[in-house]
């Protein structure tokens, strides 16, 4: 019983991290009609930037979180401006140019991974922070980092939701996601909004990276499987839906942890993928999918 509860706690917190990355993928998809294949690498770079910032003496964990968010967001804006803008001019994600975007993202992901390798090396980096003793609830030890994940994710979701629904800028972002041509006509600065979407999405990935750092080691290969799992989370929750992305992340995290715990542990990375295929085949709109965008 305690084992099950342990698995649930681990699955839940890993799942929230998946959800945060999935949130970014979902945001970019609704803004640009593309799946950003290098998002896993952005998450990895965010985690490394967090380490770099936290290593500066006197910076608290929270500072690293915000710093990594800002820097990674800027990196995201640069990526969008330099690479994706050229391609999105040729059409959205379902045209022939869309294949170019997928291939471009794939190439970018391995290039970024190599850059990270050249800077930080192949060895796993431990996170140089300590949260003190875990909290004991009966027999279960609950490390404080899991608590941090839960709280930061909830706060971030609330902020993002308020931003998207209550502010004028958020309205512009939603308008761009809904229809770019009409947004142009309404006087929305569409290219700036797309850059903003990309930056916010990359900042979310950085948060996920910094949050998972104290639980797992930070290493250059962490981004690659993350992309698959976050995509699975986005699909399970319903592509393009923000609460769905978080919910999907939790479902994927729990499913994966429970399967790895009670079935064969070495196939851990395959389970999320099985879930992805099943959902795509049976219910492509996902759990909360309202309408999947279909372009003719």
């Amino acid at each position, binding site marked *: 019983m305690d084992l099950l509860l342990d698995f649930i706690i681990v699955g839940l917190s890993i799942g929230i991290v998946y959800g945060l990355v999935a949130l970014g993928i979902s945001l970019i998809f609704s803004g640009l009609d*593309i*799946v950003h*294949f290098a998002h896993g690498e952005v998450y990895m770079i965010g985690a490394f930037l967090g380490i770099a910032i936290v290593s500066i003496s006197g910076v608290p964990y929270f500072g690293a979180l915000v710093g990594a968010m800002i820097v990674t967001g800027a990196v995201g804006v640069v990526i969008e401006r330099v*690479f994706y803008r*050229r*391609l999105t001019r040729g059409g959205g*994600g*379902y045209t*022939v140019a*869309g*294949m*170019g*975007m*997928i*291939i*471009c993202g*794939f*190439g*970018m*992901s*391995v*290039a*970024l*991974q*190599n*850059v990270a*390798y*050249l800077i930080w090396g192949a060895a796993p980096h431990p996170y140089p922070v300590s949260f003190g003793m875990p909290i004991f609830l009966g027999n279960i030890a609950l490390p404080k980092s899991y608590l941090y994940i839960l709280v930061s994710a909830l706060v971030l979701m609330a902020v993002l939701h308020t931003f998207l629904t209550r502010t004028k800028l958020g309205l512009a972002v939603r308008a761009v996601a809904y229809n770019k041509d009409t947004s142009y006509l309404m006087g929305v600065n569409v290219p700036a909004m797309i850059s903003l979407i990309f930056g916010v999405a990359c900042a979310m990935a950085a948060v996920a990276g910094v949050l998972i750092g104290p639980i797992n080691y930070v290493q250059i290969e962490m981004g*690659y*499987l993350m*992309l*698959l799992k976050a*995509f699975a989370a986005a*699909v399970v929750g319903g592509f393009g839906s923000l609460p769905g992305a978080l919910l999907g992340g939790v479902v994927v995290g729990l499913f994966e942890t429970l399967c790895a715990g009670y079935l*064969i542990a*070495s*196939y851990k*990375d*395959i389970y999320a*993928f099985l879930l*992805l*295929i099943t959902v*795509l*085949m049976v219910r*492509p709109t996902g759990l909360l999918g309202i309408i999947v965008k279909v372009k*003719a």
Partner: protein
Amino acid sequence: MAEQAASLRFIDATERGLTRLRAVHPLAPWLVAFLLLAPLPWVLLNTYHVFLANFICVMILLSVGLNIVKGFCGQVTVGHVGLYAIGAYTAAVMSVNFGMTFWMSLPIAVMVTLLAGAVVGIPSFRLEGAYLALVTLGLGESVRIFISATEYLGATNGFSGIPAPRIGDFRFDTYQKYYYLVMPVMLLGVFFSFRILRSRLGRGFMAVREDPVAAAAAGVNVRGHKMIAFLISAGYAGFAGALYAHMIPGYLNPRNFTVIEMVTLLLMVVLGGLGHIWGGVIGAIIVTIVYDITKDYYHYSLLLFGSVIVLTVLFMPKGIGGIIDRFIATRRFIAIREGRATRPGSDDAA
């Protein structure tokens, strides 16, 4: 001007030669290609270079197959390496654990890979673009994870002791001998890809790539064509995998089927020219040779390959094949503008 005229004369001469050869017999150009490639192991003195020639042949098979499904049918599959791994491991298990000869294990490997290709192809009925790309990426990666976690397949230690193919007492146990097994198969593979792509089936693939709805309206069986494209490319991957498994030293490791191989394979097709009939061949030759030359700098190889992919997509979307096509077309255009006819035999006056 002189350069242009020279290049034009070269293009014309090549085409005239090809036309004459085809007039003798449609298969004559392929025979000439075979005769030109046959003495290669004797020209290359270094055994390592012969190994490289063998490897290039395997890669050509793989990338030509991938170009059919990706470049011509427009289905973005990333996990092609998974099919290659399935082909290689099936051949290995068949010949080592069941004691079959190469001539039995090869068809079985191709069969199993075809089956796996069908499994990859089914999602393509409902999924498009990025969805399909991620599902195939996941399938390819699952194959690798499965292999490296299964003791029966050697897990991370690899699978060794795969015997070299033999006919009677003749064993293909050196790279020089193996070349004469893998090169004809490669030529046959390229030949079949030409025949397929210039047939009704190939035009159907292109129709599906350009617009599935319009293709369906024009009477093309979209699902059928997608499936056939996946099956053909899986067949190529099966051949490539079995040939790779039986090549000396007869050793397979899951590390030979990682994301790096996915990227190299992707780069081959993209750089050679997505949807160009020569794309897979050009790309496989260039990428394999460049990969080998830059082996000392392998720390940077992913950066190099990744950036080349990104830059190719941004600035050269049709790849090298597209550039050659455009070069020839430009030369033709200049010639016509200057009043020089391009009919064979009439450019001597220039």
